[in-house]
């Protein structure tokens, strides 16, 4: 029981949790502020990690790799937004989900094996080096209280520090932007597009800006995620996007700390459910390999119940619902 508690708390600050929180911040620009239904956030993440990992592998410096990741995802956002932002909301949903899947199919295709490594992806030791060389922490396991992580390698204290600092920076940016005149226009678009248009604002351009910025934040999230694991196209499929949606709605869309709270609750709950199920439900009824689908089944049910009964999430304001038809 004690071990499980440690595992749950540990999950609250792993780089994965930070990466998903950041991806949800990006989605918050789309959905929370502007009401855009981006169902392809995983595609933005995947493009970001490809941009980063390939640049580093080919010998580019880290700053260039980050710029490439941002640029690739921004171009992706522009291409996606161009045909769809003038159409009804669900068209954007269908196109983004299709485009994200297309990125995944192209990434795992044998045709681009030399560039993307096909379905095996890009292994960690091919692109993590320069980032890990920057680490000020020792190159061994470091225990802090009950939590043991490596100092610099892979899922390390160094990555945890960097990841959460980046999350904090983007939350600050989000908070400032959402209260700026620019953010108020986006909220206006969310509430009533025609009203904003009648005030002389270029709605299409504002939506495009939101889509591109949110996608770029998603790309950074992808980079953080890949630094903790590896570049793996199949881990960025549709379920990933749906998880990001679930945790954003759980924390509360259009709120400042909603994405972080949602991500922490989501990942801790997953670990807790798996731990408790393994402890209490006998193996004959629910075997070890059935635990994963079982807990993800609960994620799906949670998403449904949330949207039906508490669409504003934990932190949200019922008057500020981002659902708009």
């Amino acid at each position, binding site marked *: 029981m004690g071990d499980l508690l440690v595992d749950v708390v540990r999950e609250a600050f792993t780089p994965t949790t930070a990466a998903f929180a950041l991806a949800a911040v990006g989605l918050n620009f789309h959905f929370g502020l502007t009401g855009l*239904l981006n169902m392809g956030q995983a595609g933005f993440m995947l493009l970001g990690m490809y941009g980063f990992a390939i640049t580093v592998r080919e010998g580019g410096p880290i700053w260039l790799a980050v710029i490439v990741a941002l640029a690739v995802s921004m171009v992706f956002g522009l291409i996606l937004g*161009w045909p769809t932002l003038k*159409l009804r909301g669900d068209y954007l949903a269908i196109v983004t989900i299709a485009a994200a*899947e297309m990125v995944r199919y192209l990434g795992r295709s044998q045709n681009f094996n030399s560039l993307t490594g096909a379905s095996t992806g890009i292994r960690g030791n091919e692109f993590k080096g320069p980032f890990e060389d920057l680490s000020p922490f020792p190159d061994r396991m470091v225990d802090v209280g009950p939590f043991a992580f490596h100092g610099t390698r892979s899922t390390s204290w160094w990555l945890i520090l960097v990841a959460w600092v980046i999350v904090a920076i983007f939350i600050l940016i989000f908070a400032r932007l959402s209260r700026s005149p620019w953010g108020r226009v986006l909220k206006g678009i969310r509430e009533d597009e025609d009203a904003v248009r009648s005030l002389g604002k270029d709605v299409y351009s504002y939506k495009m800006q939101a889509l591109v910025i949110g996608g770029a934040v998603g790309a950074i999230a992808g980079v953080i995620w890949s630094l903790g694991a590896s570049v793996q196209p199949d881990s960025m499929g549709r379920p990933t996007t749906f998880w990001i949606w679930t945790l954003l709605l759980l924390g509360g869309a259009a709120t400042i700390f909603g994405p972080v709270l949602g991500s922490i609750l989501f990942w801790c709950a997953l670990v807790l459910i798996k731990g408790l199920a393994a402890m209490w439900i006998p193996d004959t009824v629910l075997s070890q390999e059935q635990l994963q689908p079982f807990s993800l089944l609960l994620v*799906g049910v949670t998403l449904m119940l949330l949207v039906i009964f508490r669409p504003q999430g934990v932190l949200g304001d019922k008057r500020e619902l981002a659902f708009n*038809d």
Partner: protein
Amino acid sequence: MKRSLGTRAMVRALVVFLVAAAAVTWLLSAQSTAATSQSASLTSIVTTDTANHAPALGSAAIADSIAVTEVATPEQTAESDAQSRVLQNVFNGVVFGLLLALASVGLSLIYGTTGLSNFAHGEQVSLGAMVAYFFATDQPVSIPLTPWEFVIGWPLWWAAIAAIVIAGGTGWIQDKFLWGKLRKRGVGVVQQMIVSIGLSLALLNFLQWWIGPDRLRLSKAIEVRHQVGPIQIGNITLMSIAIATVVLISVALFLQRTRLGRATRAVSDNPSLAAASGIKVDSIIRLVWIMAVSLAALGGILMALYDSGTKFDVGAKLLLLMFAAVTLGGLGQPYGALAGSLVIGVVVETSTLWLGPDLKYATALGILIIVLLVRPQGILGRAERVG
């Protein structure tokens, strides 16, 4: 939908088809000249090799469709071989399109009557195949959270019918306890869409939990293949084509000729007006749900037979193809979904001639994006403001 299949719409669909056909033949001629020029320079190579180097050119990976019968000169072989491969792929595409249409017609009907883009429709396809497997397999199966294992092992016909009935039941349950309630509460369409995403995630993982992650075979029978001209057709495929065609025609007749069908189209056109003229909108929508998920289940079963295997996530992979087909045909237009599915099916199958088979779904998604760019209302949709 005043006249659901106007002449202009027909002409439009025909034009798209002709353009697609022209493109295919053009690419075919380009390919076969490339093949002949290649083989002309390699005349000394033994004739059996010509059959092997053509796939390297086009990287077509249909394993069992390479049938070399008679060999005269290398040039002729390469040409007729490439041609028969294209024909085979177009044929496979039409079959795939018909089976896809079974699923996407339902998706389109649901969209038309309720405005919901149902992201859980893919899982309805898998559900049909999985339940059919559950009844038909001679392996021990069990129900989740119960420790008992048992063997059912019904013949495939029975299993398929039971699966379709059960799937229809899930449609009824869904509409009665979920979608109907949401509509009554006035929950918005976007919110309902996200609910359907949650449902798809839940169903997908439920199926994996229940049936397991392995690839399954519905039928152990080995397919007898016939050679019809340049095309190979299996027995089971022929049966699937027949069933799919009959079902699709009866759906069309239902929509076109019966009172209920007319009421369905009325609801699809304008729900409030339909309600005002005495149509029970809610029961029509319930009927549409039952029909749509039964069709999806049938599609899943036939697809499992056609692919000679199925998996818990087969529908999730098809969902985007369905959306592509439905968007191509015009959201909410059942006949559009049919035309769109055929186009998507042919494109997906013929694309394997030029691109690797791992990219075949990507081409369909490319089409989806291009359609939205050029003609967002689809082939059969009316030109109206969709923004």
